[in-house]
Each structure stands twice: as C-alpha cells, then as structure tokens.
C-alpha cells in the first residue's frame, strides 16, 4: 500500500520498468561518458517517437487478446504514400500528412473487418496485411524511395513538431510533449471511456461482453482502427525524424513496438495492460538500441539483448503466475 501511494497511480510493473530504465541509464552513463550528454538523451527520444506511437496503438489489439503485425510495414507504406503525394504530386504537406494518417485508418478498418467481422485469427490476418502493406506503398508510388521536405525547407515545418532548434543551436525535443500528451489521452481512453473499457472486456471474455449487449464487433474493430491510426501517426513521426523513406523497409519495426508493450506489462493473452507501461517498455527498447552502441558493443548485440530482455520480461510474469 505504501508503495502504491508513493508512486501514485503506477502499478507494480510500471514501477519495475521505471527501475530498469533508471538502472540502464546509470549503467550506460557509468560505462560511457559520451552517453551522459544532453544530445544523447535527445537522440534516445528521437528514436523512440515512431516506436512509441506504434506501441500506443498496438496496445489496444494486444489487450483484446489479438495482435497487429501490420503496423511496421504499414507505417513505411503510409509515409511513402504521403511523401509521394507531397513530393511528386505537389499536394500541400498538411494533405500529405492527412493522407498518411488516413491510409493508416483505412488499413486499420481492413484489419478490423478481418478480425472482428470475418473472425480470422488476428495473428494470421495481420500477417497477411503485413504482406499487403509491404507491397502496397511501393506499388502505388512506383517503388522508389521518397524524401519528405527537409526541416530547412519552407514546407518542412512539420518536422518541428518533434524537434525544435533554437537560435543558438540547442535542440529542444518538443516531440516528447506531444508524445506525453498522447500517452495521457490514450491512457484516459483506455481507463475511463467505453472504448477502453470494452477493449479490456473483449480481451477478458469476448462472449460475455457480447451477451452484455455490447456491440462487440464494433469495439473489436475499433481496437484495430486505433492501431492503424497510430501507425499512420507513426508514419508521420518517422518521416519527420528520418530523411528518406525507403520502400521494402519497415518489417521488424512492429516487433520493437510490440516487444516494448510486452516488456511494459501488456499481456500477450489479452485483458491486461496499460498505456504508461507500454510507453515505458518502448523506452527500454530504445535505450538499448541507442545505448548499447555507446558502451562499445557492436550494433548486432542490441538484437541479441532485445531478444533476451523480451524473454526475461515474460518469464517474470510466468514465474509470478506459478507462485
């Protein structure tokens, strides 16, 4: 109880992940002097935006007991289409961004129909969508990479949503504000609105939820639409952070996001999970991505560690349940 009060509304798992984050930061700072600098912090954040956004969205399907594997290839595909419209068709940047998000929602609806209406296993259905989105972007845009307008150009203002450079050259990662606001909003949605309540209910017992008179199909679908929407937002974030969108990439992004969510305590079998947890979990993954190279490990070690951390995170749950 004392612990509960000390950390306000955070749950045990979230406190634990916070602890891990702190430990990692201390360890990395101790081992690498260059790590404990302001720019590194910014770059961890930079790397985390699109993954966090994906994680916020994919938490909903995960809580319903499903999964959305299409977000990784999806976000690249949406960003490609948005960029294509801006660069090659000359539409205003705002419209391009909307197109990017809109495509995400559209694929979300598609996933939702497959899973909620047609009753396909979510894993397989979204695996198929993953393939489809992988082909879709390049197919629509002629297969070439696209560079969204750069920060310095006139129409590149959208990049400043995430990063603002002051006159004296200091970089302000205002994207984090944007992310925190979204985390709070989605946390509210999950815990205090019908959408969230029914998402948890579906993950807990879909049939019972249906018998309670809830329009299960709609809310089940909505979980995937939310996931798609955030994949679209992640597409914008990715385009804003990195120079060029390359078709054919993106496979594997979803694993960072899903892995982060799971490290943060979202259950792979549904019903359990928090947005804050997912967010913190993603930070762990990103710290590893950015931090491990700093302490002198080759980039590839990061993958091995990510795998091990993921198993460790789940094993904690398994062992706890055994007790």
């Amino acid at each position: 109880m004392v612990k509960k009060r000390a950390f306000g509304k955070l749950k045990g798992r979230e406190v634990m992940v916070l602890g891990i984050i702190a430990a990692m930061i201390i360890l990395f700072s101790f081992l690498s002097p260059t790590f404990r600098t302001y720019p590194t912090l910014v770059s961890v954040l930079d790397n985390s935006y699109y993954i966090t956004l994906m994680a916020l969205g994919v938490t909903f399907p995960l809580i319903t007991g499903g999964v959305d594997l299409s977000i990784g290839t999806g976000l690249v595909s949406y960003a490609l289409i948005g960029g294509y419209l801006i660069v090659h068709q000359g539409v205003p940047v705002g419209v391009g961004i909307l197109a990017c998000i809109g495509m995400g929602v559209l694929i979300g609806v598609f996933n939702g129909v497959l899973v909620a209406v047609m009753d396909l296993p979510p894993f397989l259905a979204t695996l198929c969508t993953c393939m489809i989105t992988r082909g879709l972007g390049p197919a629509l845009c002629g297969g070439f990479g696209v560079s969204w307008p750069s920060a310095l150009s006139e129409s590149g203002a959208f990049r400043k949503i995430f990063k603002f450079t002051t006159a004296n050259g200091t970089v302000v990662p205002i994207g984090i504000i944007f992310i925190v606001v979204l985390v709070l909003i989605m946390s509210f949605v999950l815990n205090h609105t019908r959408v969230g309540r029914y998402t948890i209910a579906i993950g807990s017992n879909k049939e019972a939820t249906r018998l309670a008179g809830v329009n299960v199909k709609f809310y089940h679908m909505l979980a995937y639409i939310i996931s798609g929407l955030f994949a679209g937002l992640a597409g914008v974030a990715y385009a804003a952070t990195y120079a060029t969108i390359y078709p054919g990439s993106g496979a594997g992004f979803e694993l960072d996001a899903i892995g982060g969510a799971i490290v943060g305590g979202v259950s792979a079998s549904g019903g359990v999970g928090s947005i804050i947890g997912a967010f913190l979990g993603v930070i762990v993954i990103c710290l590893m991505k950015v931090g491990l190279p700093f302490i002198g490990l080759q980039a590839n070690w990061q993958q091995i560690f990510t795998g091990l951390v993921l198993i460790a995170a789940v094993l904690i749950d398994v062992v706890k349940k055994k007790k």
Partner: protein
Amino acid sequence: MKKKMLAILLGAVMVLSLAACGGGGGDAKDDTKKDDTKKEETKKDDEGGSKDGGYHFEVIVKSFQSTYWQAAVIGIDNACEELGVTANANGPANESDIADQIQMIDSAIEKKPDGIGLAACDTNSVMDSLTKAAEAGIPVVCFDTGIDNAPEGSVYATVATDNEAAGACAAENMFPVIEDKIKAATVDAKVRIGEVNQDATGLNIQQRGNGFIVKMIELCNGVDKKVAVVGNEFYVNAAEGTVAESEAEVIIEVGVPAQTTVDLASTEAQKIMAKDDTIAIWGSNQTTAEGVITANGTLNKLSTDPSKGIIGAGFDAGTPQKEAIKNGQFIGSVTQSPLMMGYECIQTLNKIAKGESVSDIPMDGYWYDMENMEDDNIKPNLYD
C-alpha cells in the same frame, strides 16, 4: 458443406485475384511506362523503321529503393530513346533480397531478350544464372557493380564505378580540411575520424569503405601520424599499416549498422559524433550519409569549419545530402554517375546486339561540393 465452401471460395479468390493482378497489374504497368518508358514508346513510333532499332533488353537493378536507381532508370530511358530500342527494368524490393533478384534474372533469361543489363545485389550468387545466360547466348552487361570471376563468355562488358577510387576520393577531399587538426594530434590528444558504412556485405561496398580507410591512412602517415582502425572487425582486420589504439594519434572508427536503415545508421553516426575527439565523419552511401545528417539533427555538430565542429561528407546524392551541402553541414560528397551508367549500359548492349565489339567502361566518382554542384558534368548526376 464445409468443403464446398472452401472450394467455391478458394476458386473464386484465385480467379478474382488473378483477374485483379491482370487488371491492377496492367494499370501499374501503364504507370511505370508513363514514368519510365513513355519517351521510348513515342520514339518507337517515330523511328520504328530505323535499322538498328527494335532490340529488346531486360535490365535488372539492385532495387528501386533509393533515388539512385531512379536516376539509373532515367539514363536507361534516355538511351532507349536515342537508339530506338526497348528495355524493361525490374528489381527486388530491397537491395538485400538476393534471392528475389536471382529469380528475376532467370525469369529475364526465359524471356530471351537481346541482352541483359545487370546490377547484381551479390556478385557470387549470380554465377549460376550468368552461366545459364551464356548457355542461352544472351549477352550480359554489368553496370554499377562489376563481377569478378564471371563465367567465361557471359559478361561482355562492365560499366561500373571504381569503388576503391571513389572511396579514396572522399578521403582525399576531406583530408585537406582537417589536415591541421591531424597534424596537431598527439598520442594523448587523439583525433577521431568516423566512417559509417553500409553492411560489410557486397564486395563493392567493402571496396568503397576500404578505399577510404587506405587512403586516409596513407595521407595521415604522410604527415607522420600513426593510425588505428577500430569498430567493425572486418574493416579492422582488413586495414594494413595500422598500430594499436593506444599508440595511435589518429583513430578511424568504422560503424556498421545491423541493417542498412536510416534509423540504425543514425544511431551509429550518433555514437561516433557524440565523442569529443571526433573531427570528421563520412557516410559511405546514400542511406548512411542520410544517417549522419539525421544524427546531426540532434547533435548539431556538423560544420564546414574544422574549428567549429565535425567535418561531414557523404556519398551519392539525394535531396537530403544536396541540402546538407548547400546549408553547410557537409563539405561535399562523392557522386557516381547512375544516369550515365544506365545510359552506357544500354549503349553497350545495343552495340553487342549489333555485333560490334565492346569494352569495359570505367566510370569515375566525382567529388562535388557547394562550388561545383551546378556544373554541367556534375548536375545531371545529382538526382533527388
């Protein structure tokens, strides 16, 4: 009942999707034609009867991922237009999809074109396919990437950049800017030169990376400074004439991202740029160069003035790099001539088809910076 359902559904979907593939695919083909081969079409109408026209070539590029290949395709189109031939370009989704590319080559051989232009993703894995092409009597011209040890009689000519020279070119142009700093370096106050290399996979990529390192070592030794190479083990082992890290005055650090994506490349770049003794950094291809630019978005350390920050340089072109040079983040970059390579590839194929003798065409890597970007011999190669 169950099975009936299955039968009907599966059958229907197959038919539908194939129809969609036919129809939708048709649209897409139209699109690509509009983009890539429109001129070729009109040209054919005009000079359809010309004697040396009418050949058809298959071209297989590494992928359509980067705009580099877009430029190559333009070059191919230009040549087609001039010669009144047709060419069909295809490539895998990703430069790493070796397997897909081989299937494409075999598929191209099946079509029995008058020649094949090939930019191989991997030089070793295409050997069997090249043998098949030779057996089928289809001439192959390699462009962008040369293939050593190609089977006898398969590759007629190579139109490729000398990657080692191109890498060295970057080192040569970078060195004068940081020369003073290197001269001032001591064992206790080392200076660090970073190189972010695309994965140490393809031979040409290794050559390029090594070309830079070898040249840089040579230049540093020229001013009596000892060099150590650290980072990716492949390059560390490949480097000659180096000393242990503790004895060196100059350190060349090579970072290789786990995959060639911008996000991973930028992490590698950040790692190097965050170090206080880093004086210069080079990205060895379009993706890694963009990784350096992305990293700078956070660190803001790049400058054209060695006293103010880190000297940056890149490779290939693309909008982000061109802008980085224009606004003083990069001192310059090395471009190959994808456009010319594509053009020369078709020219060569055409000559072979006509029975003329051909020879290898080495292409240069050009150093470009703010001054010469608009020059006539440079500008066409600086694709977006």
